[in-house]
């Protein structure tokens, strides 16, 4: 069992929690390749996907994860629901609670929304991305992908590159990889580098080269176009010139370094098409790991008898 009732982030997860989720996910991966992708593990359990932000891969991934384990999954998106009619998150939570659900998967634009929800429902809460705070299942699937390829998560140099300031993926990965014994370096435009990030355990590289040099894992983050409109960097062109990962930059990492991206990728901006489709890219494997990780998290949180 996990040490936490909910999965709100990796900040408070233990190394044992992470290991248990990764091990469980690894054992579930085989189900995805079966002809009949169905095990009865979560039969009779209900999972609600509460998505306040548009998402394709995370929502689909959670939905499939629930279905493969025979849970009843319901999608609740903010458009066309009572949310559009002005219902507060607190009231929505109370309503869902009365319907007898077992777990809520929440994606929300407000940092802390998952934690807020957990204070108002008895069901287990899984954070599928809250604002610019955390996205724990993304970090877990990144770690699973890396562990499969590298055999370990200990002693690796992990470079996380780009918009660290607004990245929930970066925060969860810094906590996750650091807890598992890797050293995380972050680099990106200084306008997109959060203050005192080193206190979370990451090293702030002086520049891209220092982060990339000899790294085992290269993780590029998605750059949001609206950041440019706010003047945080001058143009996509300049971003890709100084912070985009191309063949030359990737060659600074170890020759067997893995290239990750949480997707969706702006081809030619964060990552050149050439390396995205190249041999070091594990971007597609990440998607498969995602389903397995979400199966594991659902199983570990609601798989037992109801509390």
């Amino acid at each position, binding site marked *: 069992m996990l040490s936490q009732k909910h999965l709100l982030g990796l*900040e408070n997860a233990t190394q044992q929690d992470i290991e248990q989720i990764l091990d469980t996910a690894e054992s579930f991966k085989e189900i995805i390749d079966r002809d009949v992708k169905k095990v009865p593990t979560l039969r009779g359990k209900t999972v609600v996907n509460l998505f306040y932000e548009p998402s394709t891969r995370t929502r689909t991934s959670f939905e499939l994860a629930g279905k493969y384990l025979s849970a009843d999954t319901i999608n609740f998106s903010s458009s066309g629901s009572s949310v559009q009619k002005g219902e*507060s*998150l*607190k009231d929505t939570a109370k309503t869902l609670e009365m319907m007898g659900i077992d777990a809520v998967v929440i994606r*929300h634009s*407000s*940092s*802390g*929304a998952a*934690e*807020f929800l957990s204070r108002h429902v008895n069901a287990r809460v899984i954070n599928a991305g*809250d*604002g*610019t*705070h*955390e996205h724990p299942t993304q970090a877990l699937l990144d770690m699973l992908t890396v562990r499969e390829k590298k055999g370990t998560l200990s002693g690796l140099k992990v470079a996380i590159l780009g918009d660290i300031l607004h990245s*929930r993926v970066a*925060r969860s990965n810094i906590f996750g990889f650091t807890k598992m014994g890797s050293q995380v370096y972050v680099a990106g435009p200084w306008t997109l580098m*959060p*203050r*005192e*990030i080193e*206190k*979370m355990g990451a090293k702030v590289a002086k520049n891209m080269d220092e982060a990339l040099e000899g790294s085992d894992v290269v993780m590029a983050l998605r750059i949001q176009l609206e950041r440019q409109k706010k003047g945080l960097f001058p143009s996509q062109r300049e971003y890709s010139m100084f912070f985009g990962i191309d063949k030359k930059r990737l060659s600074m990492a170890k020759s067997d370094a893995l290239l990750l991206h949480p997707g969706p990728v702006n081809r030619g901006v964060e990552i050149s098409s050439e390396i995205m489709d190249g041999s070091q890219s594990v971007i597609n494997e990440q998607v498969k790991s995602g389903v397995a990780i979400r199966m594991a998290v659902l199983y570990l949180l609601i798989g037992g008898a109801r509390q």
Partner: protein
Amino acid sequence: MKKILKGARVLDPSQKIDEIMDILVVDGKIAAIGKNVYIGDAEVIDLTGMIATPGLIDMHVHFREPGYEYKEDIETGSRSAAAGGFTTVACMPNTRPPVDNAAMVEYVKSRALKSGLVRVLPIGCVSKGLEGKEIAEMGDMVAAGAVAFSDDGRPVADSSLMRKALLYASMFDRVIIDHCEDPGLFEGGQVNEGRVSTLLGLQGIPASAEEIMVARNILLARETGTRVHIAHVSTKGSVELIRRAKAEGVKVTCEATPHHLTLTEEAVLGYNTDAKMNPPLRTGEDVEALLEGLRDGTIDAIATDHAPHSTDEKDVEFDKATFGIVGLETALGIVLTRIVGSGILDLKQAIEKMTASPARILGIDAGSLAIGKPADITVIDPDLEWTVDKNSFFSKGRNTPFHGWKLKGRAVLTMVGGKIVYADENISDDNINRAEILKASYK
């Protein structure tokens, strides 16, 4: 009506009094103060073991009326003030509609008179409609009773407008109180920029957002020779700027809140919206600098920035929650326990920053127990240990980060113009007609 407050330690910084004496109140005024005052037909209230000070003054509160009565109104705000030991409060004008003309000033005054508890002094807007474009009719508002001007809740962003406002208000010998915040640097900010903003993924508010405007105000006050008052100072840099400006003779004064003097940004962890305020709670280093500023006189006054909000506005996602906390009923206890109790100020200095000092900044006749002055008196039990319980507040607001704090010392009797407006059960004199006054019991 004659009353004798007997046997209290009378502490009046305005007259440098600190000894056990009696106070005679006749017709709402201080008639005598001395040892063994006796008049046959006076009610005697035995205050042995208590401290009697001039009525406390809070120069920065939000009573929300008109427009936001669901958060607070002038009556509930006044009750909250009385229960906290405050006899005079200055009310910020960011109501709906805002207090930007003489009729609105009159309205606030009339509502306060009707509730008949504490003295509620209106602060008028600097700019018409709080829009930051044209200066409001300050002269007319002064004539109606406005004691100062502020666009609090937002800064006076336009430096040219601020310069005009300083010059114009100084004609009437009124001070401009500025909420210092650079709009661009603040935009979208939720908490102090630093470790906590990074950890929680919340947009940070850098210290420079405040300090740039503090520096600007100092430059404008120096250039024009006018007075300016900086509201709720929160950063080390602001304290340093103000200290230097004062040494150079610039007419700048400032206040700090009990929460900025005792809490750091860490209070926000766990997405605690009751610790969300503007300016935000800062770092331990900033708190240390504020305490040093309090000690060396850079910070003139302690003010609460009492900012009530409804539960619906606070029990939401962090970035959707409103800024601000209530403070009237916790301020004195926190100052006594954390500021005096830890030796940062002595009792006389602390009381001065809550009485004579804000009175001087606002230019009002209050904050003194001199003979002939209105009998506005706060009686403090310095040994009373109590626990903050937000559910027992007289304020409508429950938004406090101090819920559950154990404090020592609080107001047990509050008198305004000779009338007892608040007394707790620890005041046992039979002459107090309990039906007429606010009461509270403590755990």
